């Protein structure tokens, strides 16, 4: 059974400055801030256009990262690797 003292809860924080707000962005976006800190964070946003701009650009950066696209394995490479593995396994001293 989990002892109460073992459950570490983060103390609610008051967000008075942009520096404090910036530190909390990741946790805020993950929805992991407690309700008091969330309210304080959002109150800071209401009076700070700089932090609104910062948050917008932070979120847009994540969106761009998520939108990166990567090519599928070329068929030629698939064949080459398969051939390489066949040969390697044949020569493998551990070949079972």
């Amino acid at each position, binding site marked *: 059974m989990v002892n109460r003292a073992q459950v570490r809860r983060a103390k609610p924080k008051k967000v008075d*400055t942009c520096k404090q707000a910036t530190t909390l962005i990741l946790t805020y976006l993950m929805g992991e801030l407690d309700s008091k800190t969330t309210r304080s964070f959002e109150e800071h946003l209401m009076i700070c256009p700089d932090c609104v701009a910062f948050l917008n650009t932070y979120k*847009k950066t994540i969106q761009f990262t998520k939108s990166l696209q990567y090519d599928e394995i070329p068929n030629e490479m698939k064949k080459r690797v398969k051939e390489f593995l066949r040969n390697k396994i044949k020569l493998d001293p551990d070949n079972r």
Partner: protein
Amino acid sequence: MIPKRHIRPKKTSSEKSQLSSNEERLLIERVKAGDQKAFEAIFSLYVSRVYRQALKLVGNEADANDVVQEVFLLVYRKANSFLGKSEFSTWLYRLTANAALTKLRQIKREKVVSLDEYMPKFRKDGHHLVRPVADWTQDIENLVSIMESRQIIQQAIDQLSPIDKAVVVMSDLEELSNPEISKTLGISVQAVKARLHRARLFLRGRLTSHFGYSPT
């Protein structure tokens, strides 16, 4: 009883014809017994996924090729060390992550970029040093800027340290949870969050700079 969580990277259309977990388990047992046909079936089933994961981490086709070779050799040679406590795909994901990280550590980055240069700076009273902070999200109107921004992001990701890059890739591209990333990379959840936040601030700083504004 709390069910175990497993890493399930997104599947592509080519992977839709997945085996049932029972069929997969039987296939692995045959690989363990040295059945090369079964090994080739595993290869065909997972090679696309392993390649994509490797490519995201190492960033180029040639190194991704090396990682794929390395991973499947390990699958063949170390199949007996897969005890079935996790799903095979989870085991394979971790093998690939480790092989890609080893490869990344061998690749010399062209130039070491100081992350600090792109971090936000604050005045003594805790407010932003450079004001107003530019909201360049309004500047991205056309496809060219979107393509350019993706290129900048990709270049910036390639400038991160191997471990930071892995955290960004696993979180934002593979959509793994922080505890899953923590387990895969062998670092604490707190460290995952700290590295992810710092890396995202760097990527944001690079983009901000690209749009002609102060990254700080």
